[in-house]
Every structure is written in C-alpha cells, then in structure tokens.
C-alpha cells in the first residue's frame, strides 16, 4: 500500500499528464463541435509538453541559466545544479508547432462554417448526405 502510494506520489506529474492527454483525446474523438475538437487537440498537445517538462525537472536543480561573471567563464559548472535544458528546447518547438496547427485548423473551421453555416459535425455530414 505504501509502495503504491509512493508510486503515486513520486510520479504524480505523470498521472496528471495522462489525465490531461486523455481529456484531450476524448474531446477529439467524442465531441461533435469542430472548435471543441480543436481545443481538445491543443489540450492533447500541451499534455505532452507537460510530460516533457516533467522529464526535464531535477531535484536540487535550478533554472538552466548559468550563473557567471564576465571574464571569469572558466569556473566549473556542475550539471547536477541545473535542470535539464534539452526537454525545454524540444518543447519550445512543440509549442510553436501547436500554435501553427491551431492557426491552420481554425482557418479550416472558418472555411467550413462559411460553406455549411454550422460547426457541428453531424449537421455538416447531414448536409453533405442530402446533396
């Protein structure tokens, strides 16, 4: 029991990211409204970003900006003192990708709305079938 509890506590960030990801995934699959799906998509993406950021964190580490004095760059830096910067870099990319996808998706949603006067997938499909 205590083992389970510690398992839950030491990895709670991971549980939260799974929860968020599932919320996003559910919204993308089950929701009917196109914009809601787009929101779900973004939640899904941020959940993965949360996951990566969680990988990067390090007990006893501080933010990855090296303390330094001008001209005395030679002093030794210990990796254990700083948080792992690599996932942060990757996630900057991921955030940018997500906003790019968002832009395109919204543009598509607007285009669809102009054609069908609706954002509900079932109504649109019904209109298509009627034709």
């Amino acid at each position, binding site marked *: 029991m205590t083992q389970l509890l510690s398992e839950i506590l030491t990895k709670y960030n991971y549980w939260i990211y799974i929860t968020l990801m599932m919320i996003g995934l559910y919204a993308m699959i089950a929701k009917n409204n196109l914009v809601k799906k787009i929101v779900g998509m973004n939640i899904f993406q941020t959940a993965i970003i949360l996951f990566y950021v969680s*990988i990067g964190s390090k007990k006893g580490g501080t933010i990855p900006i090296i303390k330094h004095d001008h001209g005395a760059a030679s002093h030794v830096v210990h990796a254990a003192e700083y948080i792992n910067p690599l996932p942060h870099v*990757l996630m900057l990319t991921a955030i940018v990708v997500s906003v790019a996808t968002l832009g395109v998706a919204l543009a*598509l949603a607007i285009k669809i709305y102009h054609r069908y006067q609706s954002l509900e997938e079932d109504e649109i499909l019904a209109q298509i079938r009627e034709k």
Partner: protein
Amino acid sequence: MSQHYPVLLVTVPLLSAFLISISGWLNKRLCFPIAVAALASASFFSAGLLSKVIHKNVVLYRLGGWAPPWGIAYRVDYLNGLVLVVVSLVALINLISTYRSVEREFSEKLGAFYTLYVLFVTGLLGITVTGDAFNLYVLLEIASLTGYGLIAMGEEDRAPLASLNYVYMGTIGACFYLLGIGYLYIVTGSLNMADISAILPSLYQSRAVLSAFIICMVGVWLKMAFFPLHAWLPNAYTFAPSAASSLIAPLMTKVMVYVMLRLMLTVFTPDFVFSAIDINRSIVWLAVIAISMGAILALTARNLKKMLTYIIVAEVGYMVGGAWLGNRAGMTGAILHLVNDALMTLCVFLVVGNIVYRMKGHSFEDLRGLFRKMPFTMGAFAIGALSIIGVPPTCGFFSKWYLLWGGIQAGHYAFVAALLFSSLVNVVLFFRIFEIGYYESPTEAHGGGHSQGSIEEAPLSMLVPLYLVAVGLVVVGLYTGAIVNNVIRLAVPPGIV
C-alpha cells in the same frame, strides 16, 4: 562540395520556398521556375548521395558542426538513399506535369501554392535524411501542415472538412510519435537514433521501451493510414486538388512507411522487434485485415479517385505486412514496394489529374467513352493499373513477388491469400474502369457540345511526364534485380535472414 550534399538536399528547396514566397508577391512568373530548379537540384543531390552510398559507404553530416548525440546529425544509408531519390524525383515530375492545372486553379495564389508545395517536399526529404528522432518530428509537422493546406484547397466543398479531419488525425499521430520519443528519451536520455539503438539492448525488457515502441508505431500508422486508422485518408485525397493529390498520395504514406522501417530497423533494431517482443505475427494479421478491407472498400467506391485512395490503404497493408513478416524476402518486398508504389500511385494520380483537367470530374460517369477521347492518357492508366494489379514486367509484380515469397517463407498463408485476393480485386476494380471508358459512350449531358469520338487529349506538357512515369514502371521492373542487389539487399540489416 559533395560532402555537403545531405544538407544541400534539404536546404536548397527550403531556401527556394522562401524565395518563391517572396517572388509570389513581386513577380509571379518566377515561382514555377524557382520550384523546378529547387526540386531538380534536390533530385541531383539525392542521386549523388545514393551513388556515394553505393560506391563508398554511409554518409554522415553534422549540422552546426556538433557531434551527435549533442547535435543533430544526418545519416544517409542504403535505405534512405533510395527513398530520397524516389521522393525528389516523384515531386519533380509531378511539379512539371501539373503546371497547367495549377495555373488554372491557383492563378491568384501561385506563390503560396508553390511555397507549400516545395516546403512539403522539403519536409519529406528532411524526414528521410535525418538521423535524429526529434528532428524527424519537426519535419513531419512541416510536411503535415503544408499537406493540410494543400489538401484543403480542393475545388470541391468537402475539401476543408476532409482536411480538418486529417488535421485531427495527423496531429494525434504526430503527437503519439512525439510521446513515444519522449518515452525513449526518459529511459535512454538521447534523441539520436544511432545512440538510442546503442543504449537500448540493455533495456529490452523495460515496459517503457515496449510502450514507446507501440506508441510510436500507432502514431506512424495513423500517419500512413494503416487500417483501421485510415479514416482520414480517402476523403482527404479524394477532394484535394489534383496537383496536390498526385503529390501527396504517392509520397506521404510511403515516407511514413519509411519512418516505420527506420524505427524498426535502426532505432529499435530487428533483435527487439522480431525477438524480444512477440507481436510480429499479430501485426501481419492486422496487415491482412488492412489489405482485405482496403480491397473491399475500394469495391464500394463510385468515384475513380476514391477508389484509388482505398487501393492506397490496401497497399499500405502490403508494406506493413511485408516489413513485419520478419524475414529478408518480406523486408525486401516492403522496401521495394515502397519505391514501386510511389511510382504506381504517381502514375494513376497523374492520369486522374489529366482526366480532371479535361473532364472536370472524376466520378465514374465522367469516364464514359474515355478511351476514345483520351487514348494516350488511358494507355498510361492501363500501364499503371497493370502495375498495381501486379502484372510483369511492370514493377508492381516484382515487389509482390517478394512479398508473396516472404509470406510463404514465414508460413503466413493468410498474408499470401490476402495479397492474391487484393490483386484479384484490383483486376475487377480496374477493368470496371476500363469497361466504363471502353463500352459506354458519354451521355448528352456530359458530352454537351462535343461531337462524339473526337479526341480531347490532355496537353503535351501533362502527357510527357505521365509517359515518363509509365515507361519508368516497366524500366524499374526490368531493373529490379539491380535495385535489389545494389541497394535493398544492403539496406536490410544482416540480422534478418
């Protein structure tokens, strides 16, 4: 100079895309020549790379001068050298062939269209050439994002919705891939493919590695439309403008198959995929279902383009199944089919492009009497169709041969049966098209104004590239031995027998 080929291959089209974008605002007439020059040089570089790989060895390139795994590295070996040549050539031929239809459909936004076109190709080339798992993701997103834009520009009303569905599924796919890479990163601490595969063997029993593998695979399958994750593909490709569908349909799924092979062969290594975890037979069963369902769904289509998209779904099943058979013949077949299918799909989609250019439609009704109206286009279509059916000496036969051989060697007779079934269904599908074009005469409503029996062939600028591809199908078929011996044989790791 030649040591910079790997990066030039990607950055020349990239820079050209920006130039196209600028010239789209300043002088539209320059867009097309720049695009042609960019893709022609990409083809040149990829051919140079392949010959370098064949004559010397694997080509490595350090971007920014940083050694992997700290920096990003490009790695060209037999497998991606081949795929690079295919991608760049297909894109170039399609670009030239669709010049006129693009002019007609996108006269207003020529610059934007060609920018996305070249960026899409850049993305695919980058995916193929890179040796870094995360870099692959970024380029995947470039290819996808430009693909969404290109697909949604179809003249039909349904294109945006189809594209938006593609956005959803594509994003899930890419995110799954990203997540899988994250899992690998958490257990190995590296993003470089070669580095990961060096660290992995001690972790084969880890659940995280297994999950990473499954998640990556699901992501890649989503992107390549492996049944039952194919739902986005038929509509997206059907309603896309013809210039875009004949670019995306041959390339996107094939490059994703390449990614799957790369993950299986390089990142996770055959030891893990075929020995440490025992799932390959069940995956081949999935492929059997994919092939059969693709074939059956194609039978239900009442529209030429849609029918072809379902055939793509079945063909993806071929390649996945072949790769997962776990023997040399199957793997060879999968790689060979990747090349062949790109060419075959290009051929038939170019034909669809020509038909749409003249007939303004691609439903079965529009095909009536087409053999009389467009005999040359339909001649090329016949060659493409025979190749998809798998008739020698077209290339489709030889890859099917390897797949069948692999299936028999592995004792997976359901896969063999599925391949034969799908070939037979393809015969039915294509001869149904031929019958419509051959026996039925166009109705008054459609033929309106044209005297019956007059030839209305597509312009020469569309026919010449089409015939280049059609003849290429036969030539590639005849040179199968050379391709397999000099490239594919060496691309399959020695661990697979």
